[in-house]
């Protein structure tokens, strides 16, 4: 039925913090990503949601092989890609593409749109002929809803929404199976946001592509995703199907996030769970359950024993000691 495209297991990224002038001594680490597990299935969207500093963007960078991992594995189409080097890496590049938040900084300002879109194809190991590239560009432009002659223009001649379309076209160019969408709509105006979200959904329906969507905005993630993972301070605290998460959130943090999400009608204001304090720094984070200092359910055990990330049925994973209590609420 569903086919695993990307499987991330116990993914870790620690940035060492050093001291010393000539002889560097490690005095600790920033644990940006600290043991993350999730799976992206073919043709589906996996959404990662969390607040700033929770490690979701670092996770994306690791999957895109822009940073070396500290630990764990990233299996893509059954192969561990985390340790690829040289020509293997080069030939892997292209099969996972990305769209980033800022449509202004993600297009090289000094290149024509057609060159920008063609770049992933042109630099690939077996680049197709010029005419093939040309056809491909025309096809992609049409797919993302831009005029044919858009290719000859420079990025600055487009508005934010149009640029994001160009960025999507570029990401589609090498026919990737997975696109990492890092906050693809948060830089856009409200009226444009819907256009792009629709476009992304249409493309997925037509091409069967998988998305790894990263965003801080819960409604957006829920709208786009099949599965949603909630991240807090470098770890996943909960994974569930999009609607399941809305209806049966289990982890206290997920509950808080949902309660804080803005209503779409004044009458719909939920009971608010205001979390005390702020997200701690990932440098020497809290022991055991990282959420316990802000958690309204925290007990002694939370600061001593790390909770397991458990399946509580139907692919709903939660990392909390009090799952059963919480489910009742």
């Amino acid at each position, binding site marked *: 039925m569903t086919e695993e495209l990307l499987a991330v297991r116990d993914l870790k990224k620690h940035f060492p913090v050093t001291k010393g002038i000539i002889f560097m001594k490690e005095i600790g680490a920033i644990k940006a990503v600290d043991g993350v597990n999730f799976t992206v299935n073919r043709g589906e969207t996996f959404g990662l949601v969390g*607040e*700033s500093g929770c490690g979701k963007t670092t996770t994306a960078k690791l999957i895109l092989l822009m940073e070396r991992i500290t630990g764990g594995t990233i299996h893509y189409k059954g192969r561990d890609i985390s340790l690829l080097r040289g020509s293997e890496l080069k030939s892997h590049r292209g099969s996972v593409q990305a769209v980033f938040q800022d449509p202004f900084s993600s297009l090289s300002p000094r290149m024509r749109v057609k060159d920008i879109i063609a770049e992933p194809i042109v630099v690939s190991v077996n680049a197709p002929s010029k005419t093939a590239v040309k056809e491909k560009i025309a096809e992609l432009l049409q797919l993302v809803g831009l005029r044919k002659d858009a290719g000859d223009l420079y990025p600055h001649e487009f*508005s934010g*929404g*149009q640029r994001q379309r160009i960025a999507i076209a570029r990401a589609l160019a090498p026919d990737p199976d997975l696109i990492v969408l890092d906050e693809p709509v948060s830089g856009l*105006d*409200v*009226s*444009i*946001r*819907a*256009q792009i*979200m*629709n476009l992304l*959904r249409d493309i997925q329906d037509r091409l069967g592509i998988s998305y790894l969507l990263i965003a*801080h*905005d*819960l*409604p*957006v993630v*829920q*709208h*786009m*995703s*099949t599965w949603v993972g909630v991240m807090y301070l470098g770890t996943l605290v909960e994974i569930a199907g*999009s*609607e399941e*998460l*809305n*209806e049966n959130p289990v982890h206290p943090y997920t509950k*808080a*996030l*949902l*309660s*804080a*999400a*803005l*209503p*779409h*009608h*004044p*009458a*719909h*204001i939920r009971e*608010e769970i*205001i*979390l005390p304090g*702020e*997200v701690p720094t990932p440098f020497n984070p809290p022991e055991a359950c990282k959420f316990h200092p802000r958690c309204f359910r925290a007990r002694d055990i939370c600061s001593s024993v790390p909770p397991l990330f458990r399946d509580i049925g139907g692919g709903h994973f939660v990392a909390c000691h009090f799952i059963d209590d919480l489910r009742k609420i």
Partner: protein
Amino acid sequence: MKMKPILEVKNLRTYFYTRRGVVKAVDGVSYELGEGETLGLVGESGCGKSISCFSIIRLVPAPAGVIVGGEILFGGSDLLLKSEEEMDRIRGAEISMILQDPMTSLNPLFTIGDQVAEPLQIHQKLKGEGLREKVREMLNLVRIPSPEVRMKEYPHQMSGGMRQRIVGGMVLACRPKILIADEPTTSLDVTIQAQFLRLLKEIQHTSNLSMIIVTHDFGIVAKACDRVAVMYAGKIVEMAGTVELFDNPEHPYTAALMKSLPKAGMRQNRLYAIEGQPPDLRTLDSGCSFAPRCPRAMEICRKEYPPRVEINDGHTLSCWLRKGEVLND
């Protein structure tokens, strides 16, 4: 619910004279703000909502930006006729403002204490222990833990949420009557956003503060505002009480914006999307500025700007559709 207006903006027009033409950033905006009321100004970026607020306190970026017309009545007199020195006495003491980005709103070289103290020194001529006491009080008010310590610290030592609270404490130090909050939570994380909005509301209740909240997010409006004005291309297209507006959005733009927002917890198939781009404010013609994107645009929409009419108690609208209906009735 008729309240005594504390601030009346009448036909405000603020233009920017650039080398590439005149930008009519605010073009005939009128509204009033009742005592203790929260007014939401909603619109997409570039619609003029921020500039209209900066116009109130006469801080339009010079020399390009010029307030070319209108009246801003506050306490019985027109702010636009006041001298610069008089305005200095009003700013911070009577009318204050919070900007979007707490990371840049504080002067990095001064301590928190100094910055919160500054308006008190200027307007209330406080000195020494009295000043310190007042600063401590303000920091307590905005929930800064251990204010005595924090006073001596610098902005970069604070997190974003804390900085925004400090900004709040700073601008409210002299107990102004009006607070303008320009996208006060946009750059904050969801959970912190919730904290801050609640704090603002609390302070408002205790001190009978009138607020204008500028935002692009209907969620914030739903959560925090009593009345809403929707702006498009430098003009208010619709204004109503919050519940009324959410229940009966009359302007096609308002309605479309609301429909284009993804709803939490639902994986809808498609969102409603407004086609096209917001207009270039330099090249507006005489018709309704939303007409080019409006699915229900009529002949007259392209020719003449619709007048503002009151269609319900406190619900005003500028749209030929409704005007037409009214006429037909």
